[in-house]
């Protein structure tokens, strides 16, 4: 469904992505794990058109993607950004409706709104509240719900568990499974490697702008080098107090 070929991205003089090749098939959850600054978010932002590549191609459903964010959303790729970036000055419902900004099918929008409320009952209770008054976990749900409202085929999730309390992290990963069940394909970027690998079908390991390992998530989770570099930090990451909300 999505094919990234030989992608090179520079930030000024910094070579952030050094020839990335990845692919995502329909119905899969694919995760990209890696340390801070490895280039995970850069990769998602390049797919979303926020960052321009200097070299390489991104092919979605057989055609080349133009690097213009709203065209890419129109094609069926939606990113749920790191840090959620909900519109704090607007209500929960307005946030969700803005997710459907490019859609014209009123009936479909209404149906999807109900679907999102079903998936996240908390949002239904708070639909008239300003998004800025939500807790961190609720904002993450809102950001994901808002992403779903564009009725994407492929969802790019950037660090959905960042800064959330452990119990909420579990909820968010359960929701990611639910989203897969309703037929969406997911490309997930995560620092919580253990959670990501337990949820995903396939995984790539990104180090300093290069893919150093790829394979089935179930295999990588058993891989000793992965265990040492990424899963050793699991307990530490899980114990970290949430920075936002609750």
């Amino acid at each position, binding site marked *: 469904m999505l094919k990234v070929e030989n992608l090179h991205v520079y930030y000024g003089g910094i070579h952030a992505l050094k020839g990335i090749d990845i692919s995502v098939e329909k119905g899969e959850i694919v995760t990209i794990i890696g340390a801070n600054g490895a280039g995970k978010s850069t990769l998602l932002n390049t797919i979303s058109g926020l960052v321009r590549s200097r070299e390489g191609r991104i092919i979605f459903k057989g055609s080349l993607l133009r690097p213009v964010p709203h065209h890419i959303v129109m094609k069926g790729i939606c990113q749920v950004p790191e840090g959620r970036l*909900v519109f704090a000055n607007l209500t929960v419902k307005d946030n969700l409706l803005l997710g459907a900004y490019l859609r014209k099918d009123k009936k479909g929008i209404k149906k999807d709104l109900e679907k999102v409320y079903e998936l996240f009952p908390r949002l239904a209770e708070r639909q008239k509240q300003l998004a800025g008054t939500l807790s961190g976990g609720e904002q993450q749900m809102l950001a994901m719900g808002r992403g779903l409202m564009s009725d994407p085929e492929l969802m790019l999730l950037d660090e959905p568990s960042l800064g959330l309390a452990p119990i909420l992290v579990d909820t968010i990963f359960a929701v990611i499974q639910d989203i897969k069940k309703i037929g969406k394909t997911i490309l997930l970027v995560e620092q919580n490697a253990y959670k990501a690998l337990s949820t995903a079908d396939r995984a790539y390991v990104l180090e300093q702008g290069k893919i150093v390992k790829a394979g089935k998530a179930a295999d990588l989770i058993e891989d000793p080098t992965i265990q040492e570099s990424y899963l050793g930090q699991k307990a530490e990451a899980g114990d970290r107090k949430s920075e936002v909300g609750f």
Partner: protein
Amino acid sequence: MIQFLQQMINGLSIGSVYALMAVGYSLVYSIMNFSNFAHGGIIMLGAYFGFFFLTLFNWPFAVAFLGAAICAAALAVLVERVAYKPLRMRNAPFLYFIISAMGASMFIENFVIATIGPTFKTYPAVFSREPFRLGPLFIGRLDTMMFVISAICLAALIYFIDFTKMGKAIQATAFNPRASALMGINTDLIVITVFAIGGFLAGIAGVLFGMKYTVYPQIGFITIKSFIAAVFGGLGSLPGAVIGSVILGILETLISGYFSSQFRDLISFSLLIIILVFRPIGLMGKSTEEKA
């Protein structure tokens, strides 16, 4: 008491025109986080367009009025394309935008001086000078029209921003352009829309101002008052811009009525400095950084 009421009425009328100009500053600030000092030039051009449409083309008032607003909107968008878009495309620092805005403002002023000339132009009398009488109060016809037209425009603007899909997209972009782009909002189109709306209202304000006073190339300087009002209300906030403008308008007429009009501008600019020092966020502003 009667004099006080009379001043309040005058203040409300001038304040409502300040509001038309101030929302232009505020809208652009809310999206792009800088003060568009070329806005004064657009107001001035609006005043000239209205003047020429009335005197050279002999268009009926309503047509000339609308024509001036549309031309001002188009020019505001043109200024954005030429002076700001190249900076946006390479994420230039805010200071560059402000310098570019000042450059555009000087260009417009000098362009008018070079082509039309520096002389004052007086609008033909569209309305009779005979005021309405309300008991002991005199209410000028032009003042009434200034207030009514401004109020209609502002109400329409607030409806547009708060209740339409495009309006909500503008609010979303004001909050976070990146996240808006990820929702499929064409942020470039939002910028064009905001400049077009600001320019349209600037054109209307320009014609009203030109009719009330006269038209000359430095008329844009007066519009700095509306900038003060926008800062006072809180840059980036539309209700703030409207409330700040009305308060400033009333304050100015009271000062010129009770003290002297020489004091008027002194007090207005003092107000600007006091706000920037003690409450840079204004009455209901969105953030404290990059106020100038």
